[in-house]
């Protein structure tokens, strides 16, 4: 029986495979991964000084769930009309339903093509085996991966320079007030942060920046965003739109073909949204599995992600608006929350930073308030005495 075939065994593909079984799917489930390793979690790779493979599920769990794992297989072609996938080595699979969970790959800007990137376990091994006390590490890009790597490298006494083209860190993902706390922490931690300038070229032993300076480097790593893996979909003729274009149920432009996770873009507030986040990959995989089994609910989960840098934990729920009205709440000396509301006063985003998991509870509550479209005043949001749980219960 042809059953379900899933291409890509990251967080999304694995979640979808198990979700099919948990929902009682009895057909065959085949999970195909280009990587040779058992599927593992990616978030720890940029956070620890020694890369470890934390498996998403143990080998025996795949067996128990009758999920056929095909590792080290690169799919070359997808024939939509015949429902066939073909791998590099000529082997092929037919499907009744196909889920593309092909993820994203590191994006490199002109002049930085020689930089290392950090997406996979093998990438992490390559980078960390070259880091020793005193090694000169240049990180291009002050986003999450770059900053997590900077923090991990500082813990190893590596000399770290971060070069970010924007005037501040994490400009795409968190409000300025939160980014400022993180910036201060990196400077205190001994990172040479260079904002508002970009790397124009790389040469032996260093990089040149747009402001005319050169920075010495033993190793250069770029964390300058990711591009969705859409090659297979594009060759097959699926509609693309900043990733594989899907509807609210993860259906692509072809019948029986679904896409979820970092490789797809979903409808969002009249536009489209492509997310690169561990939990969203899981949630979308689970939803896509339900959708493949004929369930008809639209996906409406509020985006959520986290980052760990030094002793700081950062969490964001919702999507940051570049021009939203921001209200701050100070939880303690070293922990703050930033809330954004839309023009009619509904909460749309909450971000927080503090030691350890200090902001977690409030961000989780804010996520539920966002999901309910709750109207809140700036007084309610700014006052730390106003319990978000009571606001949720009153909503």
């Amino acid at each position, binding site marked *: 029986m042809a059953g379900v075939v899933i291409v890509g065994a990251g967080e999304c593909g694995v979640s979808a495979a198990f979700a099919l079984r948990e929902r009682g799917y009895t057909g065959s489930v085949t999970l195909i991964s280009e990587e040779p390793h058992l599927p593992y979690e990616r978030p720890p790779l940029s956070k620890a000084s020694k890369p470890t493979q934390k498996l998403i599920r143990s080998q025996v769990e795949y067996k128990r769930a009758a999920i056929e794992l095909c590792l080290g297989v690169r799919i070359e072609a997808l024939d939509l009309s015949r429902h066939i996938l073909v791998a590099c080595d000529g082997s092929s699979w037919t499907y009744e339903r196909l889920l593309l969970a092909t993820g994203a790959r590191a994006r490199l800007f002109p002049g930085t093509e020689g930089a290392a990137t950090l997406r996979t376990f093998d990438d992490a091994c390559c980078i960390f085996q070259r880091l020793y006390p005193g090694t000169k590490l240049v990180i291009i890009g002050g986003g999450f991966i770059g900053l997590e790597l900077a923090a991990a490298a500082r813990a190893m006494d590596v000399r770290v320079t971060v070069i970010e083209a924007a005037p501040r860190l994490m400009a795409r993902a968190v409000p300025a007030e939160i980014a400022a706390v993180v910036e201060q922490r990196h400077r205190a931690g001994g990172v040479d942060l260079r904002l508002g300038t970009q790397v124009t070229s790389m040469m032996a032993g260093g990089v040149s920046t747009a402001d005319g300076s050169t920075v010495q480097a033993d190793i250069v790593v770029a964390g300058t965003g990711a591009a969705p893996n859409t090659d297979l979909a594009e060759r097959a003729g699926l509609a693309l739109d900043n990733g594989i274009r899907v509807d609210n149920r993860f259906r692509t432009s072809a019948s029986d073909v679904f896409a979820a996770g970092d490789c797809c873009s979903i409808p969002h507030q009249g536009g489209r949204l492509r997310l690169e986040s561990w939990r969203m990959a*899981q949630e979308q995989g689970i939803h896509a599995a339900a959708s493949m089994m004929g369930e008809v609910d639209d996906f409406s989960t509020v985006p959520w992600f*986290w980052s760990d840098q030094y002793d700081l934990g950062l969490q964001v729920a919702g999507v940051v608006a570049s021009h939203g009205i921001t209200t701050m709440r100070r939880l303690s000396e070293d922990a703050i929350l930033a809330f954004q509301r839309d023009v009619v006063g509904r909460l749309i985003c909450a971000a927080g930073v503090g030691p350890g998991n200090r902001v977690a509870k409030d961000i989780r509550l804010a996520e539920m308030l966002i999901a309910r479209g709750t109207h809140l005043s700036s007084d309610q949001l700014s006052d730390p005495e106003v319990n978000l749980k009571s606001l949720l219960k009153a909503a």
Partner: protein
Amino acid sequence: MDKWVEACSVDDIEEEDLVRFDHDGRTYAIYRSPENEYFATDGLCTHEQVHLEDGLVMEDVIECPKHNGRFNYKTGQALGAPACVNLKTYPVKVEGSAVYIDVG
């Protein structure tokens, strides 16, 4: 063998919340339910050994503050990925204003 130890005072925990309790090299989470009953589990999430103390309690559920692993704190049952292994629970009793857990 029973080994009751005093973990906290009844007023140390808000309703529908938890506190951390460390004892003898181990760490625990003590909960007060919305019905004003007290419960205890291991303090660390079974997914990635993150302490549950900053997690959110909603009704019968504790959610890990890091990756949203969810457990029923009354039974210890893991409620879905990424939490796949149940939390160990401990008997609790209240005497006067003190909350005791049986770590034996």
